[in-house]
Structures are given as C-alpha cells and as structure tokens.
C-alpha cells in the first residue's frame, strides 16, 4: 500500500523535474548566436506550454481512464481524419503540422496516445491468443502507420510498429503468431517499397544510411557526436556550451536537445537524466504490475513502451547509434504537441494508479 502511494507521487514529481530540465536547456539554447528574430524565445513558449499542460493534468487526473476506452472508436476516427488532413493541407517543416486558427499542432503526436488506447481496448475485449485478433490489430495500426509513413514521418511510423508488437506481446499474444505476422510484414515490404515514389525511396535510404548524405545528415551526426563527446565527464557548464550555441545542429532545441545537456553537464548530467527517466519508467511499470484491470494495465504498458522507445531512439540518434529519426525526447524537447502527449499520458497513468487503491 505504501509503495503505491509513492508511485503516484513520484511519477508527478519526476515529470515535473524533467520538464524543468527541458526549460533550462531551452533557456541555455536561447543564448546562442542563432535565435528566432520574431516572437518569444523557445523557453518562454515552453513555459507557457507547461502551464497549459499542468491545467490539462489537473483536469484530466480525475477523468476516469476507462472513459478513454469508451471514446476509443471516436478518437481513432478523429485521428484518422486529422492525419488525412495533414497529407492534404499540412504545413511547416516536412508538412507535419496542421494549422487551426492560431494553433499549430502535430496530429501524429496525439495519434501515438490514441493508438495505445485503441489497441488496449481492442486487446482487452478480444481473445488475444487467436491469430484473427492479432491480424485485426495490425489493420488498426496499419491504417495510421501508412498515413504517417506518407507524410513522411518515418520515425513515428517506426514507433507505431514497435508499440503494436510490444503491446501484443505484453497482452499475451502467442510468440508463434507474432513471428508469422512479422514475417508477413517482411514479405510485404518489397511491395510497399515498389509502391513508393522515387523521392520517397531516397528519403528512406538517407534515413537508413545517413552516410549517403555526409554533407547533410551525416554531418549532423558527426557534429552531434562532437557536441556530446566534448562535454566530457563534468561538462562545459551551464550556458557555456559552445557547439550548440554555434548552431552546428539545425534542430538542437527539438530532436538534438540531448546534445545540449551532454555538452553542458557532461556524463554526470547524462547519468542524472537517465536516472530520472529510470525512476519515471519504473513507477509506470509498478503501476501496470499492480493494477488488476486488463485495459488499464495495457494502457500503462503501452505508454511505457512509447516512452522507452522515444528515449532510446532519440538519445541513440544523438549518440550516433541510430538513424536520424526526428522523434522528440519526452518532456525535454521543445514543442507543445509533444509535451501535451506526455502530460495526458501521466494523467492517465495517475488515474489508473488512483483506481488501484479502490480495490
């Protein structure tokens, strides 16, 4: 019982700390030579987003998580429409954004959360041990996957596949079935490949092997490694980073924010960050182990999968272990849509946790 109380509170405290770290890093970034000439600096915007997210959290923490399940179908439909709209009228970098009034947002971020809800509901209502259930699940995921792949947002599309397979595995799908499905996917991929246009193929090639573009993405990766490596054990000190200030990296406030931390706070900073992430994830893990409700457990696990994958892919990319994927680092990367999804997720987990104590 005592353990449970700690879990919920810890989750909130750690989320808050991570958000603060993000804002500090964005503040440091704003001291660089490249700054946005119009509008508020990133850290100010992020502070505003944070306040909005806290309001959202306060409102959502008492929102019974089982209601998400009831809303699953309609949410899925909305996401489907939004993603379709992005393809038709998308704006901004790589056309992933949707502008509604003054509000720019990225439907693919929200879709991550909705996919988890939809899959959790679907797997909790059906017999996961049957292949047909699994096949239905891949159809559900596949529709969103294709829409996101077409943007093209390869990183997020990849994330969807990971979420599907891991959730199916955790929900209790048979290993044999998962293997068959995986092989089917592998066999189908050449057809998918042939259906792509030449420029889409080239994007995927550069994504998979950035060294085919050593003056662009390959250069980014080298600079990213220099930035991290030059931080050393103790770092160059807060606001004293040189690499990130000189704008070697184009997306240092979003995709490469880890470099900022590694440069200014060194290996120690990296260890502290990973420690907080670890504490955060293990609370989610504990909550999903404790809850008896299948839907709630699947939601919690899905969210955990999402966070772990994002953390690993984002940092792995910055360290030069993985291709440049354009996936945000949870709580740290600049961006309202990404932060919203983090806070909705935390609120949902918190609600699941509170419902445990009722039993």
């Amino acid at each position, binding site marked *: 019982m005592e353990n449970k109380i700690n879990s919920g509170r810890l989750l909130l405290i750690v989320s808050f700390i991570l958000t603060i770290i993000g804002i500090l890093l964005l503040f440091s970034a704003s001291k660089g030579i490249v700054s946005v000439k119009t509008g508020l600096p990133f850290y100010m915007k992020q502070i505003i987003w944070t306040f909005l997210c806290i309001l959202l959290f306060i409102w959502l923490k008492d929102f019974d998580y089982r209601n998400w399940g009831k809303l699953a179908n309609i949410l899925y439909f909305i996401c489907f429409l939004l993603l379709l709209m992005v393809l038709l009228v998308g704006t901004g970098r790589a056309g992933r954004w949707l502008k509604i009034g003054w509000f720019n947002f990225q439907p693919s971020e929200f879709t991550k959360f909705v996919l988890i809800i939809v899959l959790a509901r679907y797997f909790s209502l059906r017999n996961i041990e049957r292949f047909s259930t699994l096949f239905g699940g891949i159809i559900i995921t596949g529709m969103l996957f294709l829409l996101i792949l077409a943007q093209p947002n390869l990183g997020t599309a990849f994330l969807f596949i990971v979420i599907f397979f891991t959730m199916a595995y955790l929900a209790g799908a048979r290993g044999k079935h998962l293997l068959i499905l995986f092989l089917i996917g592998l066999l189908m991929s050449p057809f998918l490949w042939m259906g792509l246009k030449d420029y889409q193929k080239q994007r995927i090639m550069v994504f998979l092997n950035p060294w085919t573009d050593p003056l662009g993405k390959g250069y980014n990766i080298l600079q990213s490694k220099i930035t991290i490596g*030059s931080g050393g054990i103790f770092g160059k000190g807060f606001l004293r980073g040189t*690499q990130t200030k000189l704008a070697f990296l184009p997306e240092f406030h979003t995709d490469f924010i880890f470099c900022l931390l590694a440069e200014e706070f060194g290996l120690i900073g990296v260890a502290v960050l990973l420690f907080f992430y670890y504490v955060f994830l293990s609370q989610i893990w504990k909550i999903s*182990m404790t809850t008896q409700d299948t839907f709630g457990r699947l939601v919690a696990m899905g969210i955990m999968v999402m966070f*772990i994958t994002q953390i690993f892919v984002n940092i792995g990319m910055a360290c030069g272990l993985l291709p440049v994927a354009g996936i945000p680092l949870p709580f740290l990367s600049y961006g309202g849509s990404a932060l919203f999804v983090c806070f909705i997720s935390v609120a949902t987990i918190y609600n699941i946790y509170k419902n445990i104590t009722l039993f």
Partner: protein
Amino acid sequence: MEKRLKTFFNVGRILFVIIIIQCVNLQVFHFHYYRRLSDQNCIRTIDLGIPRGKILDRNGRILVEDKTCFNLVFVPYDIKNPLDVAQTLAEILNLDKNELLNMFDDVSSNPFERRILKRNLTQSEIAAVSEYAFKLSGIFVQAGLNRQYLLGETFSHVLGYTGEISQDELAVRQNEGLKAGHYIGRYGIEKQYDNYLMGRSGGYQIEVDAHGHQRKILKEIAMVPGNNIVLTLDQSVQEICKNVLGDRQGSIVVMDPRNGEILALVSNPSFDPSNIAKYLKPPYSNKKPFLNRVIAGQYAPGSIFKIVTEIAALETGEIGEHDRIECTGTMEIGDRIFHCWKEEGHGWIDINMALPFSCNIFFGTIGLNLGVEKILEYAKLFDFGKPTGIDLPGEKTGNLPSPEGSGGAINLAIGQGALTVTPIQLCVMISAVANGGNIWKPYIAKRIIAPDGKVIKDFQPGIKKTIFISDETLTVLKRGLRNVVKFGTGAAANIPGIEIAGKTGTAQVAQRDTNLPTRGAFACYAPADTPNIAMVVLLDEGSSSQAARMAGSIINRLYMSEKTITETIIGETEPIQSLPIGSEGFE
C-alpha cells in the same frame, strides 16, 4: 502477462545500459578527440551542387548540359571583418556593399556551411579575387556547375529552366539530400522529369585551419550524374519552325500523326533560359514570355472546327456528299443576321466546295440542323476540353461548353462559339484525321538513359482512343482538306512537290469589317495520301493565310533541305517515298 512485463522491463534496462556505454565511450574515452574538434570549430562541408543530366534531341544532338564553372562562396563563421571584406568585394567585383553585408549577416542556417555569393565567375573576376585574397578571409573560389542551354531561346518552352530551391520547398524536401543553393527544375522538361535529370550532389567534409583554409579532407563523396533524356524533337525542325515564326507572336507545333511524337514546339515570345530574371520584368513580361501557347494558350478554333462539323454531318447522314445549300452571304435566324466571310455569297454549293472555301452559311446551316448536342458530342469524341496528356507541366484543357453556354449551334459549328482549344489539341485532332481516327497522346520525352548508357525508360507511343470515321466520310473530308490548299482558303500553303492538306481558321474577335487584329491559324498534314507530319500554326495577330504560308514554307524546307532531316522523321517506320516532284496541278 507479468512474466512478459518483467522481460520487457529488462529489455528496457539493457537499452539504458547501451546508452550509458556509448556516452562513456564518447565523453570519456574519446573526450580529447571531440574536445579538440569542438574547440577549433574546424569542420566544414563543401557542397559542389547537384549535377543534372543532358537533354538531347532525337538524333543525339545536345540541347542542354552542365559545364564546370567557378563560384564565389563564403563561410559566415570565417569572415572575421565583414565590413572590410564587403568593402573589398564591392570594389573589385562591382557588387552592392549593403547587400553583401546582409548576406554575411544572415544567421538562419549553419554558419560553417559554404554559401554561394556569385555564380559563374569570369577569368578576370577570379584573378581579382585571388589578388586580394589576403584581405578576403572566409571568401573562396569553388568549382560548381552551370547549366548551359546551347541553343538559347530556340527550345526554351520545351526545355524550360532551373532555379534555386526556395526555403519552403527545402523544408519539405531536405530529406532528399537537397540543400540551400541547389538547383531544381522549374519549367518545361527540366521540371517534368526533374527526378530523372537530378543526380546527387557531391562534395567534401574537410578540416580547416584558423583562417578557414583546408587542412585535410575527412570525407569525400563523389557526385552522381543525373540521367540523360532524349527527346522526340528534332533540332533542325525546331530551328526551321523558330526561324519561320520569327518575331511573330504565336505558336507552331509539329507532330508525327503516326505515333504522337512531337517534332517541334515553338511558342513566341520566348525567353532565354539562362537569364530568367530579365524576362520577369517589363517590357518583356508584358507579352507573357512564360506562357507556352502550344499547350496553355486557349483560342476559339475558328473555321478549323468545320472539320468536326463536317464529320458529324456526314457520319450522321445529316447531309450527303452532293446535297447543296445556297449561300447568299447572309442568313437570318430570328432577329439575328449571320454573315459569310464572302459578302456576295458562294451561291449553291455542296460540301466538296464548302470546305475549301470555308463557307460559314453552309456549315452554319448544317450546324443548325445537327443541333448543339450533336456537335458537342463530336467535339468530345476528339477530346476537346480534356488535356492531351503531353508530358509538359502546365497544360490547359480549353473549354468544352455545356449546350446552354455554347453560343448557339451556328456559332459552334463554325468555331466561333464558346468552345476554346489549345494548339496541341488541334494538332491531335488533325492528326486523327490524317491517320484515320487515332487519337494519340502527344509526347516529348522519347527515352531516359542512365549515365552508363543503360536505357531506364523507353516511352512508347500511346493511343488514347480510336474514333470510328467511315471510309466514305474520310474520303470526302480528306479531298476537301487537300482542296483547301490546292485552290481554297489555304492556297498560300501550296508548294510544288508536296501535297499538303489542311484547314484555315480565323478567330474573328470582332465584326468582319473592323480592323481589329484577328487570330489566324492553319492546321495541316502532309503528304496528303501518306501523312507523316501534322502541324498547327497559330498567329496571335495575323491572318490565316499568313499562317498557311508559314506552314507551307516549313514543310517545303523540311522536305527539300538536306536528307538528314527527312531521314529521321520519315525513315523510322517506312523508307522515304519518292517525292512527286513537279506534280502540281493534277491529282
């Protein structure tokens, strides 16, 4: 379930350990290496640009190719005294000092990347820059590529041009390896087949000293050349057409009616593909030099449309070959009076004479009897109102009106109604007459060839559809079209030695007795019995007999000049026919 959850969490732990190991590797074991690189800020990239493939005519003559040139570039970070540098450059190269300072000051992208200051330096400019090199830190002369359009304006509307990629396009396409300063196809074939023409950029990743000078090459990537495109066009035919059209505003398109290959496509006024900026400003821009009149100019077809009316009338049996109608010069329908172009009228004539003399009363009457719907049905058969599908960007469809908005049967029947067409549509139509009913998809790119000579794509002619026209109708129509040139309104196209068949058309903008400029057009094919050329000449300001004269002159030069031209056009599907030289006067 719980067991799997534990397994999964352990996988997560392993992933965390991997991250830690890599960070220790970078931050502890390679710390000195990366710290040094970071302290010196000494890594630069040099991008040499994207090479593009050649474009060749059907005989392999080069129309466009990349040539090496020298560009002046700068690295913002390496310019220590922007004021001095700008001052010196302004003096020796005659550039605007403030503009230079603005460029140096632009911090929107990577300050270590070379950016182009001035393209295509002359020898003396290079010499001047080298002479003052000691004053110009951060300024370099770098090899680059310059697209050269060897024939200037002659091919401009076919080949199009290239232009630097914009910020917005870059945002969407940066993952394709495109960067600021790269050129992409903007118009014409350059745009249509951009993905094939574009190679991949090459360059170097280098380490530099404190002055920004290269110390060693870290990574090198070779340029990948783009694919070459062979066109269906023939340089000689194109040059003849361009010559004949001269400075006149208008367009000429020549097509092979047996397969839809475009042999020449000229639109005037045109532009110089290597100096686009000049044509975007008045006075050049006033005459719309970037409008490809062949595919995007939409005109009333005038009397050329009588071909369609005649087919409709003969096919439906509305009129027989020898049925006569009296033309008194005017025709009263309700309270409106229609005029024939010949004031005193043509008298009693049948269809065999009405077409050569382009009698409006005759065709107006049969149009009235056919009705608007029937005429539009036949117009639709010839795909008016639809794009022909030619492989150039920006094709317009013309207007196939609804029966209510057509302007009435009489006007429609003589091509003066609301129906508008593009010259390429007229060319496809006259080709269908020439070949007995096949609507071809006109095309310009014949073949795409990889740099190693491998054929990547071989474009085949494509029939869109075949219209059924009976032999009787065709015989009457073709004889009529031949007579247009022999003794009718198109007599200006009559040349000895080659039998040309065609139809004139004048879009009468106003009443016939006013002196407003008219649009003169001529659609034809030759030789009349075994056509291997179809052509449309349309003058924005001029008479149809001027257009006919031009068409005749072009065909004359094609057939009478060197063998090489005729060989490539005629020789492919059948041997050259012995030309009936001196057969004028008899059929």
